[in-house]
């Protein structure tokens, strides 16, 4: 009996190891298979993803004025720039910028600057016509953006984002 026992333990070792590995593997696959749907359930839902585009009529916005519209539950700034603002945005050494981008690459028509109004630092909404560059100033941790919405001073790493938009007529756009 004793001999039989030790022999069993000896040869059984690899079989039992197999059982350990097999049960562990089944558990991992099982948890993984259930885990992904659980994790994914927290992602934006179908109705949120289907959120429509936003149309903006530009006629009422005077030169030197800006409005904020909502697109995909985010604020979007639509700013009718003055000639000085356009000139100031163009008159910048692009290499010196933290996030180098020419003003021309950020607008379709120079007088219309359209930006997602979310500070690229931690998501506050910057205040227009404020800050050292008269573009936007973010009150949360002091980021200054210029009249092209580019980050100039402060902790934000990137320029204010330009949303996808198209001019449907000369005086109206569709964002999204």
């Amino acid at each position, binding site marked *: 009996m004793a001999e039989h026992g030790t022999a069993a333990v000896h040869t059984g070792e690899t079989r039992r190891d197999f059982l350990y590995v097999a049960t562990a593997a089944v558990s991992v696959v099982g948890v993984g298979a259930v885990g992904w749907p659980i*994790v994914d359930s*927290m*992602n*934006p*839902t179908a109705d*949120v993803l289907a*959120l429509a585009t936003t149309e903006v009529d530009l006629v009422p916005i005077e030169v030197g004025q800006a409005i*904020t519209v*909502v697109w*995909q*539950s*985010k*604020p979007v700034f639509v700013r009718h720039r003055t000639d000085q603002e356009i000139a100031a945005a163009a008159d910048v050494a692009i290499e010196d910028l933290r996030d180098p981008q020419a003003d021309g690459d950020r607008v379709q028509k120079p007088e219309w600057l359209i930006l997602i109004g*979310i500070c690229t*630092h*931690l*998501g*506050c*909404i910057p*205040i227009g016509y404020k800050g050292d560059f008269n573009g936007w100033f*973010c*009150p*949360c*941790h*002091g980021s200054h953006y210029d009249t092209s919405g580019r980050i100039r001073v402060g*902790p*934000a*790493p990137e320029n204010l984002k330009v949303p996808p938009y198209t001019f449907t007529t000369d005086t109206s756009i569709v964002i999204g």
Partner: protein
Amino acid sequence: MSNSYRGSAVVRWVNDRLPIFTFLDHQMRDYPAPRNLNYWWNYGSLALVALVLQIVTGIFLAMHYIGDARFAFDSVEHIMRNVNYGWLLRYLHSNGAALFFLVVYVHIFRGLYYGSYKSPREILWWIGIVIVLAMMATAFMGYVLPWGQMSFWAATVITNLFSAIPLLGQEIVAWLWGGFAVGGPTLTRFYALHYLLPFVIFGLVFLHLWALRTVKSNNPLGIDVRGPQDTVPFHPYYTSKDYFGMGLFLLVLAGFVFYAPNYMGHPDNYIPANPMVTPTHIVPEWYFLPFYAILRAIPDKLGGVIAMAASLLVLFVLPWLDTSRVRSARFRPIYKVIFWFLLADVVLLGYVGSQPAEGIWIHIGRALTAYYFFHFLILTPVVGKIERPRPLPQSIAAVVLKGGKA
């Protein structure tokens, strides 16, 4: 074994089937606690009292609160105005959360002063840090629930910290939000997690106490217990002392709740959340201010987030950063001094965190942040090596019976 338990027939009948009385005796009456514990040892049990208070008030708030962005703000006003004693439940819950942090911070600095993080208490210390992290997550998500302006923008700024993660940052943040910005789905999931996490904390507290029972309490002298002459039974000696401390704690809590219930809050949170306007001066609750100051001290997004995380994570490796084998600062002339410097540094960081991020405050914040890490990464190991500790006493009993402080 169980039938050796003395007590009434009913007690014995129960104990024979579920030895709960034997267990309690073992944990309370037979648990030998060092006889020289001072009032700084009250804060552990106080933290447990605070946790229970949060859970009890929270469950009753949850019976009236609605975790839906359309109704959340109004439901909190409903609690304040219409629910019987709703104002009391809510003020106990919001002020209780703040005092919970105060208690836990004192508890941590107690550990720093008396070297409670050193061998053999490293895991006990680790579990403690995990508890603070879980508390921070819980309090943050709780603060979002009233869905006022501060709630909304706190949620925005804090969740955006994750956008600093390279490559996957934006995906992770959208996943946290359940949308393209903080919104209804965010509030509802925060509510679910805010309900869950305190019970996770409860489980962690259990592990914390399990580790404590294994390695036993440290004490103001920081020397090991040598025998029964060094200890007293936990119950009734420390239970009564803890009750006394609890009375004082409840007095302070009552002071806030009845006389200054909004003292630690921000008026902006009584304005309903508006995703289109950020308040001009947003500050977190006071218990997050030192960390907030560290976040803002670094002029780089990812760097700031890393520094803030590191300020807490450095505590995990503290047991190995401290090269001194003497636990209590009482016998460590240099460490004692740098301990108070660290405390002052953290308090000042908190003050800087409450100020706008401009001008001189930026520079002060940077200096204080640098000192914080200098303390842990440089001073602590070096002082441990060069300092000459004062001679340790023979035993706890020797010191206590002399009536001296050693």
